Structures are given as C-alpha cells and as structure tokens.
C-alpha cells in the first residue's frame, strides 16, 4: 500500500486508492506510475487472491482488473469483491482477451480497455469511471 507522494491536485483520489490487479509486473509498474502521475493513490495486486486481500484492507475507489490472472481469475475476483464489500467499487477491465467487452459486461464492469492501450486512453477511462461518466457498452 503505497501512497502517491507527489500529487494532491487530483480530487478524485480522496475517496480511496485505485487497486491495480495485474500479473505482468512491468505493465503493473507502468500503469501504477501513470496513475500516480495523475495524482491517484494506488495499491497493487499480482494475483486474484491478493486482489481480494487488498480490497478488504484498502477499500479501493476503483479496481483496474486484468482478467487473465493466476490463482483466481478476473471473474472470481469480481464475484469475491461483491462478497467482501456491500457497496463494491466500479471495475475497469483491462484485458488482452479477444472478447474483452463480453467478459467485462458479464462481470458488471463499469468499462473496459483492451490491451495494448494508449496510456492517455487508460487515464481518460479511469477519469470517466471515477466521475461516473463511463458509457454503457
């Protein structure tokens, strides 16, 4: 659980940290850097079970969820979150799967972004979801 040291200008971070669930450490690091750069507090998890542990500890405001995860997959994480939290945070799915939209829809995600993505698009998607402006898909 690492707080962003640099950024207080992003009001949206106030509600809690963003949980990044990604098993590729390099990608996880880049995404974390970008989001922290955008002023968000970020926590990370590298597998499904860890993700659920973080959810319980940190009560994140948004979960950025990779679907192809070790231990528990994205669907199982989404289901677990709903069991842990009565008011679960929105989920933004990021996936390399061909049917990412379908899978995101199935778990009730707020939005999705297909890998590989532009960092600007990712940042925009996070902003939209946190502002509750994500479009139905």
């Amino acid at each position, binding site marked *: 659980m690492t707080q962003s040291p640099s950024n207080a200008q992003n009001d949206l971070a106030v509600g809690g940290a963003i949980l990044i669930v990604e098993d*590729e450490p*390099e*990608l996880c690091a*880049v*995404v974390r*850097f*970008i989001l922290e*750069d955008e002023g968000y507090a970020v926590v990370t998890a590298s597998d499904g079970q860890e993700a659920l542990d973080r959810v319980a500890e940190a009560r994140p405001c948004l979960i950025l969820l990779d679907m*192809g995860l070790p231990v528990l997959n994205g669907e199982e994480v989404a289901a677990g979150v709903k069991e842990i939290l009565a008011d679960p945070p929105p989920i933004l799915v990021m996936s*390399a*799967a*061909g*049917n*990412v*939209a*379908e899978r995101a829809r199935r778990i009730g995600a707020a939005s999705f972004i*297909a*890998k*590989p*993505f*532009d*960092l*600007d698009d990712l940042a925009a998607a996070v902003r939209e979801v946190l502002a509750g402006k994500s*479009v*139905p*898909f």
Partner: protein
Amino acid sequence: MAADLHLFTDSGSAIMGQDLVTTPPMPVKILLVDDEPKNLTALETVLAANDRTLVRAGSGQEALRQVLQDDFAVVLLDVHMPTMDGFETAELIRGRERSRETPIIFLTAAISGDVSVARGYSLGAVDYIIKPFDLDVLRSKVNVFIELFRKTDQVRRQADALAETTAFLHSVLEGATAYAIMALDLDGGILAWNEGARRIFGYRDEEVVGRANIALLHCDEDVAEGYVNDLLEAARSEGRSVSERDGRRKGGQRFTASLSIEQRIGADGHQVGFVCIAQDVTLVKETEQQRARLIQERVARAEAERARDHLRQVLDVMPEGIMLADAHGSIELCNAAAIAIIGRAPPREDAWAYRTMRRFHLDGAECTFDELPLVRAVQGGEVVLGEQYWIRGPDREELVPVLMNSAPLRDVDGMIIGGVMAFQDITPIKELERQKDAFLAAASHDLKNPLAIVKAQAQLLMRRAARMDVPETAPLVDGLRGIDFATRRLTGMVNELLDVARMQMGRPIELDPRPTDLAALVREVASDLQKSTNRHQIKVHCDEPILPGTWDGDRIERVLVNLVSNAIKYTPAGGPIDITVRRESCNGADWAVLQVKDSGIGVPTDEQHNIFERFFRGSNVAGRIEGAGIGLSGVRQIVEQHGGTVAVESVEGHGSIFTVRFPWTVPGALA
C-alpha cells in the same frame, strides 16, 4: 320327386320303414264264426297253417268283440246262427270303422233263395261258400283274401312311408331357407320351389311356379347376352353347371348369387329338366373379402415390420441418432445411437416421448417444446438443418451437446405423415471448439500482453522525455514514437491474425463497435493503399465531409483494405479504382454503402456466388495471383456480423464492383 327317393335309402331307412323290405309273410288272422263248435273245428282243420292265426267266435256277438280288437284278413261267417244271424252280424261288422273293409265270406248250408244272396252281397259279402265245403275251394278262397289283405296292408304301409318320406323331404327342402331349391323343366321353366327360393327372390308361388322361367331371377343383361341359356346348355351337356353372378330379386334389387344347375333325370333315364340350387352369397362374399382384406393387412403389416426391422438394423449401424415420429408425434423408431445419446429408448406409445428430455439452447435457455426441430418438422413441415442444443436424458446427470437435423416425412400426396430427426453427439466437436477457444484466448493473451508492456513503456518514456524538456531528447522521443507506432501496427496484425484464426475455425469474431467516421476511414485507407501503387488511380467518391456512425472501425477498415487490395491485385494492367461511400435510407433505416469498382480481370459469372466462401479462389486467378483465399470470406463474416451484406457484379475481363451494405448502427450495439 320319386326319382330322388333312392337318395334316402341309406340314411333314410328308418323313415322308409322295415316293412317295405320285409320278406317273411306277414302273420294274419282269420275270424271263424259258427254256432256249431264242430263246424269251427272242421274249419280250423281245413285252414290251419303257420302263416295265420285262426280265431273262433261262437256267436255274432263274440265275432263283433273280436273285430273290435283285431284286424282280420277275412271273416268266415255262418249265416244261420241263433240270436244274431250271419246277415245281422255282417251288417254290424260293416258298421264298425275298423272292420268296414274286412272281407266276409258267408257259409251257408244251402242257397235259400236269390233274396238272401242278394242281401248277403249288399251287406258286403264277398263270397258265399255252400256247405258242405269243397276243401280246396275253401282253402283257395281264403288264401286269396289272405293274400289280398297282405297286399293291401303292404300298400298302405308303403303309402304311409311314402307320405312320411315326402313330408320329411318337404321339411328338408322348405327348411333349407338359406338355399333356393327349384325344379326346372327342360326350358328352364320353374315347376316347383322352396321356402328358401321364396325368401331369396321375394316372389309368391303363384307368380312363379308353373309360370316363370329361371331367367326371371337373373339380371336383364345376363339374359340378353344368353348367359342363362348357356348355363342350362352346360348343365344339359355336362350334367352340371355352376356360376356366381348377380341374381335379381323381385323389385330389381341385385345380390351376389351362387348358382348350381344339375340335370334332373326321370324314371325312364331321360332328362326331364333341371334342379337349380341358388344361394345369396352377398354376406359370404363380404366375409370372404373382409377376410382377404384382413389377411392382406396382416401380410402388409408383417411386410412393414420386416422392412422396419431391416431399416432398424441399418439405422442401428449408423453413428447418428435417428428418430422417426408419426403425425401425432409418437416415436415409431429410435436407433441405437439415439438411445445411447438419450440414455434410454423413449416409450413408443407416448406421443412426443422425448418430452421427458430436458433441452436447452446453447446459451443455456430452456428450449420449449414447440422449438424442437422434430416438432417443427412434423407440425410445421419445417426442414431444420444443423441446429445445436444441449439435451439431458431422463436418467442422465450431464448435458450432451447435439447437432440436430429434422425434416417432415410426407406421403405421395405431400401430406405430412411424420418426421425424422437425425442428431449427433457433438461432445468431441464442442471439446475441440473449447480447446480452440482456449488456444485463441491464450494466443491473444500471450501476444498482446508483451505488446501492452512495450507500448506502455514506450509511452511512459515519451512522457518522461517530454517532461525533461531538453533538446537532446528529441531523437529519443522520435524513436519511442516509432516503437509506439510499430506496436500499433503489430497490434492490428495480431488482431487480424486472431480474427483469421477465429474465422478459419468457424467461430464468430468479437466486434468492438465504437463511434467511427466512415468518410475519414475510407479516405485514410485510399490514401494508404495509393502509396503501394502508381499504376492504379484510387479515387474516393463521398459527398459528405464526415459520416459518423457506430461500427467496429478496425474491422470495417479491414473489409475496405481487403476489397481495395483485391481491386489492385486483380487489375494487373493498372487503371482507376473507384471507392464510393454513402448513406442510404431504406425502409426507414439508414444503411452505409461501400462500393469498390475496378476494371480488372473480373470474376467468372458461374463462380460469383462462391467467391465469398472460405478458401475459394477464382479459376482465372488460381496459380497466377498470390492469395490464401481467406480475404473475401472474412469480408463477408465481418459485414454479416455488422448485420449487412456483400455482393459482387462482374464481367470477366471487364472488372468487378463489390458492394457492401450494413446498418448505420450495428444491431445490439449501444451508441
């Protein structure tokens, strides 16, 4: 009828009576009446013999008692007796019913005058014998009467027997009411007939007997054609003729008659006419026909059973499950493979027996009864091809994926008499599909994750470099931009590769509809591809500055790139390539229309319907122009998944026009 009597001598001897054929002489009684016992004794002595019994009477009264008790062949009556003389006695004998005909011979000492003789005769005497007797005369006279008595008795018995026989025959003939029995003369005239004839033909005796000809009982056409005469002629020459024709009742009603005509031979051995026996065989005929029908049906059933058994044996060898249902949906036949898939044979008498099965669509929704392929085939005449369902047999836990085909069965008139369903356990195919999907997912994951890292790192480095704000970073940023651009192209290629793989596996691709400017997309593709050729002039015809809609832009771009690349490839001599893009309204809905026109080698007319098939290549390009033949089938799949169509018009040697139409907004996509 006398001629027929001989018919009964064997079986009818009881009726004919033993007497007719008796040979020992019948014992007879003779009454001797005299008031003188010695006269009686003398008479006894003279007349005694084994074949007779001599009864003595000493007076007229006693004689009368005797004739009341017995029949006598002859009475020898003494004329002169005290109390009641011979004449008186004779008178009284004659007066009795029983002895009215009994012959009386008066015995008298002397003829005392004509008067008494005349009186004697008038009283029934048959003779006089004057005493003293001439023994021989007495014996011979008495013998005459004995003989006469015997003959008379025999005749009477014969007459009785004859009457009895006649009555018997009559009762037989009249009792045989199911048969018309007729005596005919030589010309077929009806001389006599029985109750059966009356009943069958409906005439009264006075209308027929002695008046009508057998022709009356036949139909007019048979008479006119000489059929009746032929029957008589045949009976005459061959002794008997039989036939089965329509008979005719009084009033004209016809019926099936069995007829037998036989010669009737008189006592002199000559033919005197015919005996005709007829029977109404309508019922017999019907019964026979019914029986024949039943036998025929039974044979047909057995035949059908054999054929069914044969069919079953053949069907049981087949790996596909086969079910035959009748028009009511009862399962008539279910082969071994079907039973293996379902888990048990459906009960035959239960209409739509597989109601007991649970059925689901591929998406998991329960399949209603009316949606079942076999039900649709039988009830709606629908031919169902290649539909996939999950089924679970009544005794089964697991769902089995099946591929179902179904069609109605029709009779020669086209009426639906049932249906056939062929289905196949596609568990292995499903497993293969699952493996393919898993492979695709893994391939997608494994290819895109590294790309995602490269892209994200490049972009992160670009951001950092930009923040440094020093001129030395400029070439670095250019290089990073090149990496970023390359990952974009690589991503596009990976996506296309995965799409191709999915389409080759016959799987749908996952569309990602987003707001897209079709005009910009077309111009960009045209401009990109123009860079690859200078022998072709690619021109975009678009009246609008922008054409915004919601589609999977990457896939539509791939469609257009495919079509334009083809136009370039199959116009080897070079020339104009015209791309038209426009919005069309049709039935209240907006459609996007993309058209690519070239002046190339074209597509042979008879191959135009095939060119969108997977792996198809035109006969005029195969071996001469490179290509795997995946392009146009991919074009079709993408367009169809957008709810659209693709078509080609072409004249071989003069170029082609490919036209793609798809709805302005993809069905199911939310803007």
